[in-house]
């Protein structure tokens, strides 16, 4: 096929949408189809149809269901992480609104592939560890901490997954020792990860005056504060 030289322009100007100026017979003449046919011995040139691939021999099924089976509707959903609010960017100070740490001001690190946000207290001073939080439970302030010094690339959702323990069959004698197995000790590796993220972060926090005490204080609504009028 010859390459398209330019954008194909219609030889039939539009009067109104859907109605062209020239009739079918006029357009036949304008396009020169009569000339192409004459050149090719009275018929419009066609190339041979592409060879149809031979279908494999299918046997008719042995079993037809008695009633029509409904096919489920097609699901073309493309899962992707939730859209990050424009006010949240790496290093933003966020206020947690629910859960164990409600009211605490924490530092945002990055958004994980599941859509949850990775945050840290940092743990040493504020008691909030590396944690995943949903965007809906956070208020973003406009205060930002310098986060370029921290390396948090290795954290993702698998890091935070619960460890699956093999179910042990409890025998008679083990009933009394059951208590010892329940305690969950945080592995040393996770403690080291927390430290590696926190130490450079704490340095950049201490660089800004009052920021350390600011993060230590919990947020609460006082008398006269109207949340819809507050600038965060």
């Amino acid at each position: 096929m010859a390459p398209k030289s330019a954008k194909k322009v219609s030889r039939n100007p539009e009067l109104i949408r859907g109605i062209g100026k020239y009739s079918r017979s006029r357009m036949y003449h304008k396009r020169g189809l009569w000339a192409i046919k004459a050149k090719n011995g009275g018929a419009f040139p066609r190339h041979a149809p592409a060879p149809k691939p031979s279908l494999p021999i299918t046997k008719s099924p042995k079993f037809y269901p008695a009633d029509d089976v409904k096919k489920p509707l097609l699901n073309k959903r493309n899962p992707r992480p939730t859209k990050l609010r424009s006010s949240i960017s790496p290093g933003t100070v966020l206020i947690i609104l629910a859960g164990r740490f409600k009211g605490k001001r924490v530092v945002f690190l990055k958004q994980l592939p599941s859509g949850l946000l990775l945050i840290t207290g940092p743990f040493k001073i504020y008691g909030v560890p590396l944690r995943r939080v949903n965007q809906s439970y956070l208020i973003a302030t406009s205060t930002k901490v310098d986060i370029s010094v921290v390396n948090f690339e290795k954290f993702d959702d698998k890091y935070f997954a619960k460890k699956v323990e093999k179910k042990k069959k409890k025998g008679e004698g083990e009933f009394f020792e059951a208590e010892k197995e329940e305690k969950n000790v945080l592995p040393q590796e996770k403690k080291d990860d927390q430290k590696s993220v926190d130490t450079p972060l704490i340095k950049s926090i201490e660089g800004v005056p009052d920021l350390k005490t600011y993060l230590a204080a919990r947020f609460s609504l006082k008398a006269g504060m109207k949340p819809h009028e507050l600038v965060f």
Partner: protein
Amino acid sequence: MPFKRHVEIGRVALINYGKEYGKLVVIVDVVDQNRALVDAPDMVRVQMNFKRLSLTDIKIDIKRVPSKKTLIAAMQEADVQGRWEKSSWGRKLIVQKRRASLNDFDRFKLMLAKIKRGALIRQELAKLKKESAS
């Protein structure tokens, strides 16, 4: 107690209702019993009901319906913006705006500063009390 601030040509007023809330304008003409023609350097001249205006103490010297250029020159000469910002009403509005735009971090720093100030005042007071008691 007679009225001190009159509606007159050249009176500076503050818009207290509507889209232009908080703007300083000059009354350049009176349309009828209820409406005035107002103008400001950064807006199109428009008619406004007196109920939308709060009169200020500031009055400038202009003729009825001056041209925009004349108006701006007269406002510069009378230093309307400067006088407004020095007046207690103007200062209050500026402080209100500043307080409303405070960040969460700013509000925290403000709280620390207030506590410090209070502590100093109480120290001084304690000192004075001690001196007067002895």
